[in-house]
């Protein structure tokens, strides 16, 4: 393990260290008398923290402190008058929460409606993304002619910036000059009139289709990577035992993918539930009621009416919900994994 150290090598090392960047030079403060290994051990106590410091500071500034502030803000009555000096805003106690959770009043009702819409949308989107991703990666596990081209093609929706992709879909969903109605109404004559897609009840399906189109390649990417970690001896053994292709998929591939799926489904769930970009670009500032997902709903409650206190309370409720779901999900799936 230890390469032979010659005097020449030592010299060149020292020279390199002297001319090295100031960071590494100051790192070797051991002094000429000490042996490098001892110095290294001393440094090791604080070094990991130094390495982590930038990441910790950034996480604090952009994620953790704002999150704590957000929780504090949810207990205050912050309106547009207090943006510049929000610490002056009056304490509101649980008032913001009470309003958000009063399901008999319009605000609470709208929030509850938005929550259910988001749940339905997320469940369908995650399910379809996973199904498509799993199907395609299984089908493309063996090489065949054109596989590379297809794989590149399938990653295009994932690579496209959200707004570019979603604007294209918005164009396709236009009532009078869009592709969807042209195909459904003019070419296939399936509908008696040209339906609206971006307002009214259909907007839910429009959002779902765009979300799946954009999201399934990620599932495909992760499952493809997961498939490569399955040892091929398993398949060989199964084949010798006479298991056909379909059986191999059911008995070997799917169980081996379980840990990958566990994380993948959770990540897809969180991303879809919190997704703001897709509905925002598709519908603009105000989403139609049928597709009024929670992120847009809170955005409107905060930035359109400038009622930050109420918006923060809704965000905190959302976070609590996601925490509970994640915890329950991890507990349930980990236990099942241990049982198997």
């Amino acid at each position, binding site marked *: 393990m230890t390469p032979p150290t010659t005097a020449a090598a030592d010299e060149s090392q020292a020279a390199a260290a002297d001319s090295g960047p100031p960071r590494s030079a100051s790192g070797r403060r051991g002094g000429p008398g000490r042996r490098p290994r001892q110095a*290294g051990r001393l440094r090791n106590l604080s070094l990991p923290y130094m390495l982590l410091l930038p990441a910790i500071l950034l996480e604090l500034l952009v994620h953790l402190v704002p999150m704590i502030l957000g929780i504090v803000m949810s207990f205050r009555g912050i309106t547009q008058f207090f943006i510049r000096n929000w610490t002056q805003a009056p304490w509101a106690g649980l008032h913001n929460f009470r309003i958000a959770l009063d399901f008999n009043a319009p605000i609470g009702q709208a929030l509850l409606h938005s929550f259910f819409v988001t749940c339905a949308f997320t469940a369908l989107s995650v399910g379809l993304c996973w199904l498509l991703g799993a199907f395609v990666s299984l089908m493309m596990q063996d090489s065949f002619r054109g596989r590379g081209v297809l794989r590149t093609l399938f990653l295009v929706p994932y690579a496209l910036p959200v707004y570019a992709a979603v604007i294209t879909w918005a164009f396709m969903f236009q009532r009078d000059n869009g*592709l969807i109605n042209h195909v459904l109404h003019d070419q296939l004559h399936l509908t008696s009139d040209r339906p609206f897609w971006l307002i009214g009840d259909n907007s839910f399906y429009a959002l779902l289709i765009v979300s799946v189109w954009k999201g399934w390649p990620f599932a495909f990417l992760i499952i493809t990577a997961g498939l490569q970690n399955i040892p091929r001896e398993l398949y060989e053994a199964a084949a010798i035992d006479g298991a056909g292709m379909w059986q191999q998929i059911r008995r070997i591939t799917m169980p081996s993918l379980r840990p990958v799926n566990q994380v993948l489904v959770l990540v897809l769930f969180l991303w879809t539930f919190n997704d703001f970009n897709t509905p925002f670009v598709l519908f603009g500032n105000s989403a139609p009621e049928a597709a009024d997902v929670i992120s847009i709903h809170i955005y409107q409650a905060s930035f359109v009416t400038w009622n930050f206190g109420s918006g923060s309370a809704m965000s905190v409720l959302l976070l609590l919900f996601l925490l509970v779901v994640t915890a329950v999900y991890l507990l349930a799936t980990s236990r099942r994994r241990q049982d198997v």
Partner: protein
Amino acid sequence: MSRAAAHVSPMAPPRSFIWTRRVGLSLISLFVLVPVYVMVSSSLKPLQDVSGAFRWLPSGLTLRPYFDIWQTVPLARYFGNSLIVSGAATICSVIVAIFAAYAVSRYRFRGKRVFTVTVLSTQMFPGILFLLPLFLIFVNIGNTTGIALYGSRGGLILTYLTFSLPFSIWMLIGYFDSIPRDLDEAALVDGCGPLRALFRVVVPAATPGIVAVAVYAFMTAWGEVLFASVMTNDTTRTLAVGLRGYATQNDVYWNQVMAASLVVSVPVVAGFLLLQRYLVAGLTAGAVK
């Protein structure tokens, strides 16, 4: 990635499998391709083709939209802003992630688990929850110290680099773990400082993982809409918001919208497709393990 560990079954796949594959993949290709086709073909159509009923084939091809997009909306400025913001966020994010992942992968220290769990759980936060406070923090930092973060590119860079950080750190930890410790320990025994060992030994060996992380960070920053729409003003506006300029006017120039979408997509899509095998390799070695 092209050498995917295809399992070599001694028998050819059954006919049912081949047909499922053919039909399934054809349908999915169609689903994926139609919007891409609409984007490309509409960007080459004259205005009357995209204002009237949709037509699969243009009545005539024109490059006009590609010239007009720069006038209708100050697209070049948005483009420049997006490049600066995404580029800077990517570089910083990768460097910070390398340091953090190296610490977690190579050292034992108190609070390591807390760090990794906390960083990962930030992925769960709804963006909207910290958008409002971050907005207020930036405004207040600007008021008290004079450092303009709200409405500036700096504020956006800071925000975006933190967005891609958790996933980048997570992926690099896995990648660094897969590099034999003997390699950098040998360098340490030879008298290298830990940082030299990191940059001379570990980083070169982890290049695919680092490239993957960089691609991810750039895409994240390039495509973000929520914070861009709140944190920028007219001069610092990025493409994510600027592109809506075509659509909010009374007459929507759909051919220009499509041309602009195509133009802003080319850098990321090209970069992604060129580097995708690194991303898959990085995922295989890191995240998915």
